[in-house]
């Protein structure tokens, strides 16, 4: 296992103010305390599944490409790209079982794909159409797919972390041999729920995996201004359990770390914190302009270890892929995305009254009255939905 090239994450020189310059290099490969995962040797990504993993990564990246342009065209309202984080997402999700529960943030599109969510269901959410499992209630990328144990995401940073711990406590009580895994970013380590969730997990030794995709940035705040701990992983020791750093571009390292964490959790050995070091290639979201705060050179440098290209090279080296086939797979991915877009865009919008559903299992008197009044306004032509 190799940690991320330190150059990629050492952004402090760019924008940190002199007064608060940290004492030592941050996010270096030489981070002293956190145990690093055993890496490829321990439990490598199953070689037979590597092509599938690659194709999932292609599909995710093709989705990013297409959705960024859909957003620019005003056909979807918003989008959160994940480029640069494909290996971390695919590697971690592939290490879970279907019975496990995933508590995502808003960037985990590739995780949903690995868990078996059809791409078109994802597009339905992005278009907020009437087939959207979440009924057009949320901004794009705030997915939820109960059938795949992919709990619905929310925007407030970190809140899923304590929830994942609570679900793990429930599984403990039911004696279900499963784990819960919370996805979150480097910025989320500053949240209240990170602290509470890590602490509760330590105290109750819950079967929880804390999977932090440290992509170097929380919108415009670089990782080394988020917190002064040399690595994020060593924060786990404050809660009495294991923290490991993995190169998030290394599918084996990610997979191995999660497999190991899962095995320990199922064996009753408690939680694990995994810091997957990656890099956010694109904007934070379509509302963000990274040029305001991030030199392009940093991105160029990071792209030298593009997880998609790394896996491609590996497949090529293993004789499982050549340029022609790669082009064909890319083509197929783009076609799949195009098909899903076409399908989702063609679906009717949500029913104009549907925003009044699901507040409670049964509407209260007041909600019923508000619905009646709105229907009357529609009949009177005052509201034209």
């Amino acid at each position: 296992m190799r940690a991320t090239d330190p150059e990629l994450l050492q952004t402090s020189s760019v924008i940190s103010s002199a007064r608060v310059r940290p004492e030592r290099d941050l996010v270096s490969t030489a981070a002293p305390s956190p145990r690093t995962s055993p890496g490829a040797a321990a439990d490598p990504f199953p070689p037979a599944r590597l092509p599938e993993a690659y194709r999932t990564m292609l599909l995710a990246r093709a989705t990013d490409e297409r959705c960024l342009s859909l957003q620019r065209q005003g056909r979807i309202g918003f989008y959160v790209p994940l480029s640069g984080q494909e290996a971390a997402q695919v590697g971690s999700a592939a290490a879970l079982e279907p019975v496990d529960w995933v508590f995502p943030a808003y960037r985990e599109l590739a995780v949903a794909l690995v868990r078996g969510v059809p791409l078109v269901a994802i597009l339905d959410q992005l278009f907020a159409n009437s087939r959207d499992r979440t009924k057009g209630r949320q901004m794009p990328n705030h997915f939820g797919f109960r059938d795949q144990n992919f709990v619905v995401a929310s925007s407030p940073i970190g809140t899923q972390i304590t929830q994942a711990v609570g679900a793990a406590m429930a599984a403990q009580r039911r004696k279900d041999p499963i784990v819960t895994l919370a996805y979150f970013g480097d910025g989320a380590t500053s949240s209240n729920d990170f602290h509470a969730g890590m602490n509760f997990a330590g105290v109750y030794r819950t079967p929880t995996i804390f999977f932090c995709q440290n992509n170097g940035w929380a919108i415009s705040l670089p990782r080394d201004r988020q917190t002064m701990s040399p690595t994020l992983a060593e924060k786990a020791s404050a809660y009495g359990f294991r923290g490991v750093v993995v190169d998030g571009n290394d599918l084996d390292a990610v997979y191995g770390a999660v497999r190991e964490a899962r095995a320990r959790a199922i064996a009753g050995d408690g939680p694990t914190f995994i810091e997957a070091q990656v890099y956010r290639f694109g904007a934070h979201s379509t509302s963000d302009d990274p040029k305001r705060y991030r030199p392009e050179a940093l991105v160029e440098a990071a792209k030298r270890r593009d997880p998609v290209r790394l896996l491609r090279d590996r497949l090529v080296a293993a004789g499982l892929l050549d340029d022609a086939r790669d082009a064909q797979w890319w083509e197929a991915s783009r076609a799949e995305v195009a098909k899903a877009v076409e399908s989702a865009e063609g679906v009717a919008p949500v029913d104009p009254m549907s925003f009044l559903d699901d507040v409670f299992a049964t509407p209260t008197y007041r909600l019923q009255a508000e619905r009646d009044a709105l229907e009357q306004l529609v009949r009177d032509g005052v509201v034209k939905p």
Partner: protein
Amino acid sequence: MTERTLVQAVNRGLFEAMQADPDVVLLGEDIGVNGGVFRATEGLAQQFGTDRVVDTPLSETGIVGTAIGMALYGLKPVAEIQFLDFIYPAFDQIVSELAKFRYRSGGQYPCHVVIRTPYGGGIKGGLYHSQSSEAYFAHTPGLKVIVPSTPADAKGLLLTAIQDEDPVLFLEPKRIYRSVTGEVPDGDHRVPFGVARLVREGTDASVFAYGAMIPPTVDAAETLAGEGISVEVIDLRSLVPLDEAAVVASVEKTGRAVVVHEAPRTCGFGAEISALLAERAFYSLKAPIARVTGFDTPFPYALENVYLPDAARIAHAIRSTVRSG
């Protein structure tokens, strides 16, 4: 039927719910061996074990966040917040998550957590052991807000809360935890949400109150009966869902309304009752709607008796309302 105090009724309700359903788990600070700082969970850890009566670290964020996770997974967690005043570290989980899970998931993830917490003044608790912030929660779509004022209701509403499908904030008037006793039905006694309790019928004015404001309101009504004023007292007990029909019908009958609560006046729950009546019972109203409430100050320690509405202030407000208009 067994005679119990209000806090004993809560304890009994928890006991019966846990006995009936292994999915019911309690979590909170000092609720285990210690039995809760008000003894609401007394004996339950001994009876059901510390993995069903879970003492947590000092983090309300953690308590509500993990309770949500448990509920998503299928348990029926009942979280205790030691004092309502200490719920604010969990406010994000309550407002952003608990209240919105069913909604934002398009109905895929109901999230049924009961949060029990003692609230209100009258125990010399000062700023941080006396607050009545029910209006914050009533203003949050997706939460039910329940306030019992009798032992029977405490048990009956709590059992309903634990079997409900939605999140419930269950506010226990700590001031009358022990001072109010009453007959509590044994067994699976449930009091439905959304139904106000008619405490006392009357014809000259309607008074709407809840929680620890019920005893002084009843005292006021008795005093006024002696003066020939007939007061209807309605215990709202279920703020969300609200029994709007009962509120409106009462004022249609009496033509006069007074709302009583401990919370500060501005934007308190009394404002909602006033607004409801100004919309839906306007033509029945014969006089201005009076609010008898706490003041727009933090809750004071030494002067809580001046701060809190009492029978005299309530009676005075009713009297003025009846005389005017």
